[in-house]
């Protein structure tokens, strides 16, 4: 049709304009670099979570990130569910019991002990991961005024979530460009908007000693914890993709049958 080239031309010029705009932004030193491209097992229509990565990533969260970052929407029983890290119910119970949950008031109606410390009880499967801080003010006070965000949905809450978080975690220890001023008490990370991030570099080589013996480089730790956090954001991803496959096969077959019926039916009209 005659108007096709017009639409094509418009589309191409739009694409060209957008890409030049994006590159121009990155060249300016206060804007962040586009995220690195890391490959993850859960990407694509047939992607699944690598169980080993999930368990190692959980270990990284537990031993490193959990000191400052909450995971409030994830419950301990989720750790034993299908499509997740694959812990048994007994293992999940053990993990839960290792956490201290604020206890209900005791018989005297107290919620703190003589020293003013919050009374706690061991976690059970039904509990959610407790926050490392009792409230936002305490979190900020312990982190130089910055609020470490809850990580339950961090992968969904950032554009290009997995690559973005991976880039932040592996983007420290770089030399700032000449003339760039790093704010006091902040750290240089070119993948963070503004390039000054309140979080100190969380991962070093061998920050954790992996239970399965995998070599704990920063890249490995980052890859694993991003996999775990992707699961935390989307625990139903595997079920979703599996169901999608069955649904699409059914719908395509159904469309085929209906198309044949339509053609047969309309044959005597045309």
């Amino acid at each position, binding site marked *: 049709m005659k*108007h096709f080239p*017009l*639409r094509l031309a*418009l589309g191409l*010029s*739009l694409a*060209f*304009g*957008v890409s*030049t*705009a994006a590159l121009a932004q990155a060249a300016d030193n206060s804007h962040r670099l586009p995220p690195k491209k890391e490959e993850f097992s859960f990407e694509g*229509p047939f992607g699944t979570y690598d169980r080993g990565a999930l368990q190692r990533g959980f270990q990284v969260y537990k031993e490193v990130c959990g000191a400052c970052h909450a995971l409030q*929407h*994830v*419950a301990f029983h*989720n750790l034993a569910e299908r499509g997740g890290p694959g812990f048994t119910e007994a293992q999940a119970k053990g993990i839960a019991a290792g956490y201290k949950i604020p206890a209900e008031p005791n018989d005297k109606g107290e919620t703190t002990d003589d020293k003013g410390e919050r009374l706690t009880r061991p976690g059970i499967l039904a509990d959610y991961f407790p926050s490392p801080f009792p409230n936002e003010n305490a979190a900020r006070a312990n982190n130089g005024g910055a609020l470490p*965000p809850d990580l*339950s*949905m961090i992968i*969904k*809450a*950032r*554009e290009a*979530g997995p690559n973005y978080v991976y880039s932040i975690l592996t983007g420290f220890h770089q030399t700032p460009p000449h003339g760039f001023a790093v704010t006091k008490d902040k750290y240089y990370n070119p993948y963070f*908007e503004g390039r000054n991030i309140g979080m100190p570099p969380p991962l070093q080589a061998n920050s954790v000693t992996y239970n399965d013996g995998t070599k704990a480089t920063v890249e490995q730790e980052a890859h694993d914890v991003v996999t775990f956090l992707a699961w935390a*954001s989307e*625990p*139903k991803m595997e*079920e*979703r*993709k599996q*169901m*999608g*496959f069955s*649904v*699409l096969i059914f*719908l*395509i077959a*159904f*469309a085929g049958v*209906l*198309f044949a*019926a*339509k053609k047969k*039916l*309309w044959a005597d*009209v045309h």
Partner: protein
Amino acid sequence: MSGPSTYTPKSGIEKWLDQRLPLPRLMHDTIHTFPTPKNLNWWYVFGGILTFCLVTQIVTGIVLAMHYKPDATLAFGSVEKIMREVNYGWLIRYIHANGASMFFLAVYIHMFRGLYYGSYKAPRELIWIIGVLIYVLMTATAFFGYVLPWGQMSFWGATVITNFFTAIPLIGTHIATWLWGDFAVGDATLNRFFSLHYLLPFVIAGVVGLHIWALHVPGNNNPLGIDVKSPQDTVPFHPYYTVKDAFGLVVFLIFFALFVFYAPEFFGNPDNAIEANPLVTPPEIVPEWYLLPFYAILRSIPNKLLGVIALGAAILILAFIPWLDTSRVRSCRFRPTMKWLFWFFAIDCVILGYCGSQPVDAAIAGISLVWIARAGALYYFGFFFPIMPLVGIFETPKPLPASISQPVLGE
């Protein structure tokens, strides 16, 4: 064309019902035997698709409402519980959220089809106007619904849109306070938006009933834009269009399923995965894609009140189309000039949508998007006035066929 009913009840139950509440007769006359032009093309399946979308949104919505908590401290968490803990909650939520986008995609195709084939022209003006009313109700419903998850975009989108009312001189702030139930968007606002979001779809269903009723008086228009002249021009709605609509629906469902199962967050905004914070505004506040063209028109006008008026006018002007278009010919198939202008209009809407999605200071090849949006808005309004009335008067249409059954003259 609605003529005398040809329904004859056969069984005892049918006779009993027919004398008391003639629903089977109604079904028979409107869905079974209803004479429909036999030349309707695939663009006509979207009416049936829209009915399916409305039912889907209502059913998934009612089920979500069994678990959702419309309280500012609980809403975000309740949505996460639906996603993680309610059996198949993730599926129902993704169907509902993506269903809204599918609903608007279908309604835009449906509206553009009506524009192209002149389905708004006499005697179908009221069908079109009722359709505009349905569209406005859909927009309101979608706006209320987007606030409910109480993410950052929910909250700040609500703040921006309810602040439109403060543009009204003298009483604007009072109206906004009345809408909010507080001095700003908050818990009171969320609760009432939930109530209204639950209510409006049923209002839409009622108005859709009127829309179909109004359609059944003159009967369907068709791609040739000429009237049905004899029964040979038509086929009964069932089975010809029930089967064709069913196929169209299943193809649509394939498209829908691709989003629900493989790209469920495609239409969403990452900021809405962050709980609402009244003290922190996201770097860019962006409405859902189906509202972007109107957002662009709003932002293209530097004056607050005029911008809001332009936004309202952009939607309301649709209701006047039956009178703005002066052409005696309905279908753009036979309107060579209008056909081009129609496609420019469609592209214009896409360009406006793109402008609406970008930050205010964005530019392409050195040209600020604000100026592109202004040009887009100019053509948007210009298409309705003066283009529609003038083209109708000065255009030379192609000769129309004699009838639907004999589209080639002299056959």
